[in-house]
């Protein structure tokens, strides 16, 4: 932990993430107005009443900015947890069992490489409709493949260790070895993976919202806000730049923190790789 705080880039990252989390959690109390209520004339310029002015429907842009990360973060973190927990269990099981199950997992990972993430989610949305649970599930599944790859590789190394051998010779059951001997030893890796997966999930979900395939209106969301205000870039640039800056600083914060964490733990974040 001390090593993390001594690395200035990592410290900035952690501060950015904490700031965003505090704002997201505190939005209902901090925001001056309700994010979806129509308050005034559309496109009022920034003023003491409306710090960022009003949007194209006359809603307070500043309140929407404070609220705008909540759903995206919920989706990203939930998908990250699904990806890391599911991926670690499958990846370690593959490392433990090898054989046909391992081949299946490798095949899945290989297949994922061929599908651009946005298309994967688009297929899900076409089939199952556009809703938050579907988004979480689709993003969680696609992100899981990368975690399977890294935890499987780590698991194969661990399987050669004396204590795993000893547990096997003791006749302990497979699930017990996976949960008791392997899983605790990839906790570091899982922490870094969670950060990387959450940051790419955030990029993905805001890109999807921007495309109109992610979070639906009237939910306040940064990706949607950028899309809404895009046509007003020349007259009301603040309506585009504020949510754009919010997404970018949050993702940057997570990535900086993940990089610092990986360095402190002696893992290679660039190789584990956040991937689009």
């Amino acid at each position, binding site marked *: 932990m001390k090593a993390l705080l001594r690395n200035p*880039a990592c410290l900035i990252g952690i501060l950015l993430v904490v700031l965003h989390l505090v704002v997201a959690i505190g939005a209902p109390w901090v925001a001056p107005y309700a994010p979806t209520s129509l308050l005034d004339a559309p496109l009022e310029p920034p003023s003491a009443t409306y710090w960022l002015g009003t949007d194209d429907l006359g809603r307070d842009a500043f309140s929407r900015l404070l609220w705008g990360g909540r759903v995206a973060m919920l989706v990203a973190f939930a998908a990250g947890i699904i990806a890391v927990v599911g991926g670690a269990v499958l990846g370690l099981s593959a490392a433990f069992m090898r054989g046909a199950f391992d081949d299946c997992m490798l*095949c899945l990972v*290989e*297949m994922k*490489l*061929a*599908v*651009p*993430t*946005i*298309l994967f989610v*688009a*297929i*899900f*949305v*076409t*089939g*199952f*409709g556009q809703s938050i649970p579907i988004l979480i599930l689709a993003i969680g599944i696609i992100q899981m493949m990368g975690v399977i790859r890294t935890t499987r590789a780590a698991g194969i190394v661990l399987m050669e260790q004396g204590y795993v051998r000893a547990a096997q010779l003791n006749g302990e059951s497979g699930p017990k070895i996976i949960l008791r001997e392997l899983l605790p030893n990839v906790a570091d890796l899982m922490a870094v993976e969670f950060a990387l997966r959450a*940051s790419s999930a955030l*990029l*993905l979900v*805001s*890109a999807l919202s*921007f*495309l*109109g*395939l992610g979070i639906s209106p009237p939910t306040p969301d940064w*990706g949607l806000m*950028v*899309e809404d205000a*895009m046509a007003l*870039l*020349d007259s009301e*640039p603040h309506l*585009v*730049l504020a949510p*754009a800056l919010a*997404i*970018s600083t949050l*993702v*940057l914060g997570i*990535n*900086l923190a993940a*990089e610092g964490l990986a360095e402190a733990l002696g893992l*290679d974040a*660039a*190789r584990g*790789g*956040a*991937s*689009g």
Partner: protein
Amino acid sequence: MISLILRRGALSLATLFLLASFIFFATEVLPGDALDVSLSADEVAMMPPEVLARRKAELGLDRPILERYLGFLGGLRKFDLGRTIITRAPVADIVAMPLRNSMALAAVTLLLALPVALGIAMAAAQAKGRGLDNAVSGAAIIGYSIPEFVTGLLLIAVFAVWWPIFPATITASTNDPLSVLLAAAPLAVFTTIIGSIAYLGRILRVGMIEVMASDFVERLHLSGIPRWRILLVHALPAAVIPGLSAAALYAASLVSGIVVVEMVFAYPGIGAELVRAVTRREVHVVQAIALAAAICVVSFNLLADLGISALDPRTRSA
């Protein structure tokens, strides 16, 4: 080498087959059939059951799943992508030109981004741990933390609004020659290039640093070969290998990036077509775009794999 090409080729085909199956089951079996997906829940509820049944029979959707699945695969083998459910337009006609446009954007991006990323990676590896390297790493992490649509809009804000030297959106149409289209889209090309440089530069830098720290580079040093020669002739091919193994990931992320960038600039490619098809629930168009993208990524991956084995003799026996 030939047996390697055959084996990798077969593997790629198997991957595509599995993907096609996944696409079919995720869009036409699990959520109901193609007509259920094409219509909204309200429309299905409004339609009398016998009309719905007749429409399904017309579309061949009353056949058992296995038969429809085999029909789907059989159509793919003949590059027959079917027709849209509602308007009955041939899917191949809808997808062909946008696909061409998107592939042109991807090709230009790759051609321009790769040399720049290589150059940056070499410069950064030379200065490992010092100012330039830190600046490059910092720029890369910022580069891949900013969503493509934000980069695109920032470029529009700077180069189309404040200092209007480029058009904000593209006025060329879908069927224009590629030269016209790409010339009309400088900011779209810049946006995809920036993302690609951040992505490739980061991977290539790691490979480069690893190689420059290796024993064999040390040996070359000691035998008095100049540093630039080591860098260009000996280290570069070795450093490209990790880059090539990340090629599939890069290709997939390039496609995702292009989908978004096309929407920012109104570039007439598969991105715009995909979003339109998903929101209008045109199942077969979504399927065709997903398959086309998968074929591109898988072929790119295949080429990268073969490139690795050409560059790295150790992998040939594997």
